């Protein structure tokens, strides 16, 4: 079913975009040089991260869509489960990191 193909691709692309956002966020907090380099593309590090998240999502959406032309419902469910847990864990990783950086570091 064509619907499932797009849903599965979107779920995995969103998960990879989320991981890229977390990675860029953590690296830029540990390295001022990296944060400055990131900001050099758009004038602000957060705007650059926003564009990276859009680019990563779009690119991986088409890659996953092309890679699996007819996923079944179980494969789609798996992709949605991965996305669900990635968002929950990602939320607490970012919140926890900035809390630790402020109170603990």
């Amino acid at each position, binding site marked *: 079913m064509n*619907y*499932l193909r*797009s*849903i599965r691709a*979107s*779920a995995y*692309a*969103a998960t990879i*975009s*989320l991981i890229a*956002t*977390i990675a860029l*966020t953590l690296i830029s907090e540990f390295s001022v040089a990296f944060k400055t380099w990131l900001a050099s593309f758009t*004038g*602000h590090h*957060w*705007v650059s*991260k*926003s564009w990276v*998240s859009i680019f990563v*999502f779009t690119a991986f959406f088409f890659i996953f869509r092309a890679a699996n032309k007819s996923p079944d*419902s*179980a494969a*789609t*469910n798996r992709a*949605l*489960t991965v*996305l*669900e847990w990635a*968002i*929950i864990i*990602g*939320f607490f990783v*970012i*919140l926890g990191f*900035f*809390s630790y*950086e*402020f*109170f603990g570091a």
Partner: protein
Amino acid sequence: MDIAALIGSKPVLIGLHLGFAILGIDAFLWLLGEISADVKNTKRRLVVALVGLFAYIATWIIGGYYYVVFYGPLVKPIIKAGQASWAHAIAMEAKEHIFLFAVPLAITLVLLSRIHADELQSLGLKKRFSHLTAIAAGLGLSFGLMGFIISAAARWGVL
């Protein structure tokens, strides 16, 4: 004052940012109700999901513009110098980065909304669709809470 200057002014930008965020949260809560009630009207569900997606995109662009142009140079120094500097260090930093999860999630929800309620049941996707829709609304509510903390800290900062 011309209309562009009015829209680009600080209070109007904040109002639009908040207004579109509330619209997005409401749309995803409505969508959650449609899914839970097994509503057969796929077209209505898709429209509600699209409203949620476009509202989150609008609040991203408007809030992002305000953040880069006004928050950084004007508000951030006040919060950092005040009694609640953690509001920027934790709430703002978390909000601006976690927000980047929201739009890819909303796109996934729009794609899921195209499936008929009966098919959602037979394919076993209803539970995940419900959970992810609740997460989309929950993320929006958490951004609202963080936004409130940031605004309150800016006010305390000048007292």
